[in-house]
């Protein structure tokens, strides 16, 4: 196991990089879920967090966006403590159950992505309208703009939430299972949008179960209540590392040599 690429011993957080952590411990109620996370993520780069449910992916993401306080170590987001730069962060959380009962149209939900920029009473400008329309177009849901969200399918709703994150025009995207419940077309829209954002200089952190999605990122962190490995996809996505991350793994060289991975469970308990 010693051949797996490990996190750097220390990083330089002084350059106001999008995301920087040194010996960071994350967890709930004073109980650590993952300890000793050291990483830095530069602009225009994407980091995939890969691990099973409960491995600490969501906990790390919630710490990055300021929903959970770090239990130890140091973390800086956009050169400040988490939660101090709301205009520059977009966060896609894992659950949106309440959206089913809200009387909102798809466009209303995407427009919420502009609230931080406009504050309590600031008028929505034509620039905001353009960003909202552009985000919906990029997720392939322009035609659904006037539909009630509660009438959309799960995959369509996920596209609406992703469009909201895009409409924020953030410098750091923090995405918890962005491709969960997306169909094949939705995945293509998402991957293209992510590539465009990265080209714009945005940094992204995404939690995923999907090895193919992770292999498209610049960096991969394998998590199983600890950092198994951190490095390029070529270095980290190895049968040995995946075995250690997932315990029992089913891998196959399917069509076009794609790797498939079947987690042991499909629940959402993290």
């Amino acid at each position: 196991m010693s051949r797996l690429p490990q996190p750097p011993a220390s990083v330089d957080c002084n350059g106001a990089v999008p995301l920087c952590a040194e010996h960071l411990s994350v967890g709930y109620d004073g109980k650590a879920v993952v300890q000793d996370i050291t990483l830095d993520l530069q602009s225009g780069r994407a980091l995939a967090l890969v691990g099973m449910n409960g491995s600490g992916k969501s906990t790390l993401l919630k710490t990055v966006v300021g929903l959970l306080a770090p239990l130890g170590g140091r973390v800086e987001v956009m050169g400040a403590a988490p939660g101090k730069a709301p205009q520059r962060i977009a966060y896609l959380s894992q659950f949106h159950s309440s959206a089913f009962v809200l009387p909102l149209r798809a466009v209303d939900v995407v427009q919420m992505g502009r609230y931080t920029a406009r504050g309590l009473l600031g008028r929505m400008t034509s620039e905001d309208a353009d960003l909202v329309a552009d985000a919906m177009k990029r997720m392939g849901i322009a035609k659904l703009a006037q539909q009630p969200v509660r009438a959309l399918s799960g995959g369509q709703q996920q596209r609406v939430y992703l469009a909201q994150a895009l409409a924020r025009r953030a410098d750091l995207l923090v995405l918890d299972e962005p491709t969960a419940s997306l169909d094949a077309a939705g995945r293509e829209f998402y991957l293209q949008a992510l590539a465009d954002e990265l080209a714009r200089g945005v940094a992204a952190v995404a939690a995923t179960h999907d090895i193919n999605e992770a292999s498209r990122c610049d960096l991969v962190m394998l998590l199983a209540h600890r950092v198994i490995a951190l490095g390029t996809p070529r270095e980290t996505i190895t049968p040995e590392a995946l075995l250690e991350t997932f315990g029992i793994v089913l891998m196959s060289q399917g069509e076009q040599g794609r790797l498939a991975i079947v987690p042991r469970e499909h629940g959402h308990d993290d």
Partner: protein
Amino acid sequence: MEWFINPFIQNGFMLRALAAGVLVSISAAIVGTFMVLRGLAFIGDALSHGVLPGIAAALLLNIPGILGAAVGAAVMIGGISLITQRSRLSADTAIGLLFVGMLALGVVIVSRSTAFTGDLVAILFGEVLGIGQSALLIQLAATAVVAATAVLCYRPFLLLCYNPEQAQVAGFSVRLYHNIMLALIALTVIVSFQTVGTLLVFGMLLAPAAAGALLARRIGTMMLWAAGLGAAAVYAGLLFSYHFNTAAGSTIVLVATLIFFAVFFARSARPAHTAEAAQR
């Protein structure tokens, strides 16, 4: 036509009751919409009963009932936050505890005084037909405060209903805006106890907003539906109680509940959302 209009033209107390009831409907529509969408119905219920000991104590001490109601609401909200923050008990448990405790305290206070029976009925069911000029002005001021606060906090309130985590990350303090929302519910309950009473104000918060949720595709439309249906319930309830000599406050809330069920069954017969989904 006279049957529908004359009671309000010929009797000042009926006109004041109608004006106060419509004002209650407006503030209850605004607050009730967010209460329903945020899933705070139980805390609204608890608040509407939890103010009872405050009002009863105020009447015993000869101070305005509205002040007692405010103290009762503050104790309720403070107690609920204390329990949920200092223990692992869920909000339901905390709300339920304060709910029964405060209601029991209210009845204990009331039972100490033998001359209280009439007042108790007034507290629980309101005195919509005995509303004076000053109570009407207080109701007007409260409705204006509720409306202004809702305009100011519309975006954070909507984000809270949509997803509290997103609200927090977007830079809107969940704790702050949640507390403002609770304060608006409390204000509506406190001020409306004179009109429809503590027991029934909850019905005015819930029934029109719930009917609005079934009818509307947008939040603003939902509030308009709720206000309109609430005002219609006030008018119809007052008219019925005048002609058939029934208790005014209870009749109003009964009509509001009947309107909800009418809307519910009309919508169930015509499953609109499934049809829309099938069109795509």
